[in-house]
């Protein structure tokens, strides 16, 4: 297990290293030079321009700048905003909390709805299965930007149950402000997870070891829990991991629609202001989170599979 983990960690580092290089160097593909942002429409004297370039480190060779940037990032310093001159880390603290809360909320909904519906569908062939299957198929085709419009219209404007915009104070405030965004964000992923769970559970229900469990007269709850669910866990966790990892950047849509002030919105604002330092930092954070969540899911899957655990372990 340890060697497997280390191997995967090494692979992750290589991927992250490559991604960070792509993200950092991409800025130099953009037309115009980075320091122009600071001057806006004013035209600086060559001396001022040179001073600013020196201040931003732009007079150094590219590779030196990249390595310096990476070194800072590894020490937890994500740089400074070119627009507000604020530290990116402090700029991101609150938005990160919002996005994490939103994604966590959505993740809970996805797991509950996805696994629950998928399992119910597998256990109740016939009308229930057909109905859930139809609902699940439609769900996989409802993107967050469609869902947010409809949920706002129904639950915020017509019924007034939840706020339509902004983030209220306190835990209760967050809970109610994040409900519609989380639901909107969770629909597609719930549908996909329900589908995977249903397929897996059906496969297990038809398997020989479930026949053994039935032949031994085990209770239905135990049969479902320790044979059907336990054996379906692998693919379900993989898909859940991938979906949740994707939500982090997908959250930008609902953050914008509901004005939550999350990381995605910071990214959008920085894009509009051409604040490359912040864009780079946010992209790096989101890519790292995406890769890490996937890795965590993979490790969990390996941990749950005794064959993998023992074969790669010790």
């Amino acid at each position, binding site marked *: 297990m340890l060697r497997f983990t280390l191997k995967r960690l090494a692979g992750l580092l290589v991927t992250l290293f490559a991604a960070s290089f792509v993200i950092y160097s991409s800025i130099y593909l953009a037309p115009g030079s980075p320091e122009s942002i600071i001057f806006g429409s004013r035209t600086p004297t060559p001396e001022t321009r040179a001073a600013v370039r020196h201040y931003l480190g732009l007079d150094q060779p590219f590779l030196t700048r990249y390595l310096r940037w990476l070194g800072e990032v590894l020490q937890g310093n994500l740089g400074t905003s070119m627009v507000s001159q604020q530290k990116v880390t402090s700029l991101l603290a609150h938005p990160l909390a919002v996005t994490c809360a939103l994604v966590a909320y959505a993740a809970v909904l996805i797991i509950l709805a996805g696994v629950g519906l998928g399992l119910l569908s597998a256990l109740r*062939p016939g009308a229930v299965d057909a109905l859930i299957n139809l609902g699940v198929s439609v769900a996989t085709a409802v993107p967050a930007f469609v869902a947010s419009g409809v949920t706002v219209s129904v639950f915020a404007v017509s019924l007034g149950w939840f706020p339509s915009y902004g983030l209220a104070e306190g835990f209760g405030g967050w809970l109610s402000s994040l409900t519609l965004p989380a639901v909107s964000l969770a629909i597609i992923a719930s549908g996909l997870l329900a589908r995977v769970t249903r397929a897996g559970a059906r496969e297990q229900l038809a*398997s*020989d*070891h479930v*026949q*053994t*469990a*039935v*032949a*031994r*007269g*085990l*209770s239905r709850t*135990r049969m479902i829990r*320790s*044979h059907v669910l*336990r*054996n379906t866990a692998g693919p379900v966790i993989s898909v859940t991991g991938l979906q949740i990892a994707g939500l982090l950047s997908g959250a930008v849509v609902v953050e914008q629609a509901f004005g939550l002030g999350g990381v995605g919105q910071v990214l959008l604002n920085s894009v509009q202001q051409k604040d490359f330092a912040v864009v780079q930092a946010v992209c790096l954070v989101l890519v790292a989170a995406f890769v890490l969540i996937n890795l965590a899911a993979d490790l969990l899957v390996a941990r*749950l*599979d*005794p*064959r993998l655990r*023992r074969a790669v372990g010790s």
Partner: protein
Amino acid sequence: MTTQATPDPLLQLRDLRLDLLGDDGGDRPILRGVDLTVQAGEAVGIVGESGSGKSMTLRCIARLTPPGARVSGDVLVGGRDVNRYRGGQLRRFRQTEVGYVFQDPRAAINPMHTVGDFLLEPARDRGEDLGAATAAAVETLTRMGITDPQRRMRQYPFELSGGLLQRVMIASVLLARPSLLLADEPTTALDVTTQAEVLALTDRLRRDSGIAMLFVTHDLDLAIAVCSRIVVLYAGQVLEVADSESLRRAPLHPYTRGLLASRPPLDQRLPRIPVIPGTPVSAADSGPGCPFAGRCPVALPVCASAFPDRTVHPGGQVACHRAGEIAAGSLDDALPVIPHQPSGPGAAEDPLQPGGSGIPVPAATDAGEQL
């Protein structure tokens, strides 16, 4: 032959019929009126080719038929009709009265749990004392010839050989102390030497605990060696029932004779091994007559149109229009010759001896199965 007449058999199948849902949505007959009895503590073999319905017979008894199956006829275990059990009754019946051993232990045991978890699962499920259950599991594993049972309990199925795993499977069934063991080709997936060993151990433990066994196999010799009585099944119908010794010495149905003749002899060379000509038919494809008629060397016109009544004889029962002539030996020229098989005390090279008695129990070692 006394068992047939005993009033209260442990298992009684009366006119058992089974139809499965065919690919076309219609019913596909699998069993067409199977009658069978098993006395308490007795070992009965069901022999037939694949598709004869032998496994489905077992599944009907444990109520493990696939979805869409239609069962009719009586399945009586301990005098009660299994098909009437509902919910909790059915679960209790499966927990206490029948134990099912599947063909492939690798598929039948959940690979995600340890051997110990597998063995203790019923006790855990019913909230029984785990200490006592563990002790019983260790003891049964030991008696199934498994060395170092404590270590095995901590291992996962993939860490055990197929033979060892099937012993675990059988141990799990014996642990529940059922009155009837349903064994569906329990050794087919194992190699030949392990086969004999596993069967011998199973048989000894089964006898010690007074557990009856219904043993399904395609291997007639194996059935003769392990069971006291044999049921020959063909296309969902019983062609012959006899005690093992009678069946081996004087089979009355041409099909049984063909099966016995197609075994390679152990002590002589034949220019070629005789086979039963033709291919087996399924219950769905056979008409109103004897399903074997198309392949039978002594078939009469009547064989294709009417299924023969069963005739009772000292060794058992047979369903054949020409059983009388075969018994009298007047058709021997047309029927295949059964090669001489050494039997009796001199047959030391055959560890499995007829009659189901005196099977030597090999010292169980699992050398080569260590990881």
